């Protein structure tokens, strides 16, 4: 038996874990190179790159939230609606003349509360699958958002409220031109992703989230309060959707009824492309970021090349299927049955 295991340790086998971890980044780099070759003048320009980051800013928050849920082998279909409801609440509070720090905190709190409702529903009401609870709240939250706003857009926020989504960090002190600024949303993405990377990989709660996805009965038998962890995960997912709402408020300067429509599917797609497994317990924060980037770059690049958005849909769909097929193959190779 020992001999056999030694034989398997060829270079190819040794590379598998690295490929598993960083393969998605390789795909991202290849995409960037291809886009650069196709659009040498525009694609890697300062303006376009910051543009991509601004475009993915709020989606990246939803994707990160959905990712944590998917790691527990769950699903959250309501993130788009949570974001819309949080955005509408933000807009109403802003219109009511609340001070800016209240306006900034309100969507985070609203998002957290929506996520908490999802988590409590899944655990206390013992819904057979998170799909059902969050499908319900997908309608409930969006309906509530329309009820409180009357279904009409509410526009015009102060600069402080718009800072995270719209702010620019001036880089002229580095000798760069005025147009070469750093979007605040990019810094926010980096900070949030780093914090959640630490949380998922270096805290006990984070480890338990992976354990629940790997084998919920093992987690339960280890004395982990599975329901409590699930409630935390769904609440954090809602909280991140609330951050998404804040970013979107900055970007669009408006709360509007169609905000985040179908963005839950984009978020799920980014996680799947990034290597998160629907079976739970598998996937990395870095992978999700790569997944979000791949979708962002694909859309951006195809726009630059004037390809119809219908083709974008076809391509993104194909990438999802391909990415999951790779996951299936990897499971065949990687695990003993």
């Amino acid at each position, binding site marked *: 038996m020992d001999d056999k295991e030694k034989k398997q340790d060829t270079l190819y086998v040794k590379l598998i874990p690295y490929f598993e971890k960083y393969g998605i980044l390789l795909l991202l780099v290849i995409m960037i190179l291809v886009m650069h070759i196709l659009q040498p003048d525009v694609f890697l320009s300062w303006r376009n790159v910051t543009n991509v980051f601004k475009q993915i800013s709020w989606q990246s928050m939803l994707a990160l939230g959905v990712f944590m849920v998917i790691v527990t082998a769950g699903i959250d279909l309501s993130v788009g609606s949570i974001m819309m409801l949080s955005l509408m609440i933000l807009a109403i509070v802003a219109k009511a003349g609340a001070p800016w720090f209240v306006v900034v905190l309100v969507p985070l709190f609203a998002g957290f509360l929506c996520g908490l409702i999802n988590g409590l529903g899944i655990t206390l009401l013992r819904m057979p699958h998170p799909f059902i609870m969050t499908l319900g709240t997908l309608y409930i939250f969006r309906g509530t958002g329309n009820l409180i706003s009357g279904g009409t857009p509410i526009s015009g926020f102060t600069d402080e409220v718009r800072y995270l989504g719209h702010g620019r960090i001036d880089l002229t002190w580095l000798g760069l031109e005025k147009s070469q600024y750093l979007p605040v949303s990019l810094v926010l993405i980096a900070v949030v992703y780093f914090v959640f990377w630490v949380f998922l990989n270096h805290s006990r709660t984070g480890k338990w989230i*992976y354990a629940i996805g790997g084998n919920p009965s093992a987690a339960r038998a280890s004395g982990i309060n599975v329901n409590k962890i699930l409630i935390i995960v769904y609440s954090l997912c809602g909280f991140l959707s609330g951050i998404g709402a804040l970013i979107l408020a900055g970007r669009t300067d408006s709360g509007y009824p169609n905000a985040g429509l179908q963005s839950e599917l984009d978020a799920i797609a980014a996680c799947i492309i990034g290597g998160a497994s629907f079976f739970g*317990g598998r996937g990395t924060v870095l992978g999700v970021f790569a997944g979000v980037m791949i979708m962002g770059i694909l859309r951006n690049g195809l726009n630059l090349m004037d390809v119809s958005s219908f083709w974008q849909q076809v391509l993104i769909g194909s990438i999802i299927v391909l990415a999951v097929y790779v996951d299936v193959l990897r499971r065949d190779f990687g695990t003993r049955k």
Partner: protein
Amino acid sequence: MTSTNKLLLEAKGITKYFGTITALENVNLKVHEGECLGVVGDNGAGKSTLMKVLSGLYKPSAGALFFEGKEHVLDSPKDSQNLGLEMVYQDLALAGNLPIGENIFLGREPTKNIGLLKFLDFKKIQEMTSAHLEKLKINVKSADQKVEELSGGQRQAVAIARSTAFNAKVVIMDEPTAALAIKEVGKVLDLINKLKSTGVGVIVISHRMDDIFTVCDRVMALFQGTNFAESQLDKTSRDEVIGWIMGKK
């Protein structure tokens, strides 16, 4: 060896209903230091239910649990773990996506403080895992290997290692050899003998007479949720025990 050693765990009059179904009725059980008790019984005889009561996963409808002479009410597996009572489940209860070390310490991970925040101490997990696997003479490539990459026997060994990593006094094993290849069975049984020699009380639930007669000191049979028969191992025979399982004395 049994009755002279200290009594570790005693269950008295355990009864468990699931709705109108009586899974266990007035069941008693004892296990001493360094002793291995075999629990046999047909499917549905109540073995697994009894073990889940002992580990705190189920609350008994009636009856009491005594640990080292004191009565305890177990609200969750955490409570039984705190008493030094560990369970090795039939389905192994390991998370395949996590490495060996993190499985062994799952739910009880050592942490270190950085500022006000608590972070997992991966170095300590690895050191403690390696030392513990060494102690039990369990061979794996490294403590960082994911459990899903292991063979059935190695997984069972990890599950047993997990149950004994925190100075367990009683270890309950549900069908520890059921899913194993024949040559791996011997290794697991050796491991059980090693545990006994360190003074751990072991309860083994098994269908396999070979297991029972290799490692156990005493055997008890459940039949339709009740105590049916019990004997020192040297005062009974395989045929008699098989008869008990089928409800014949």
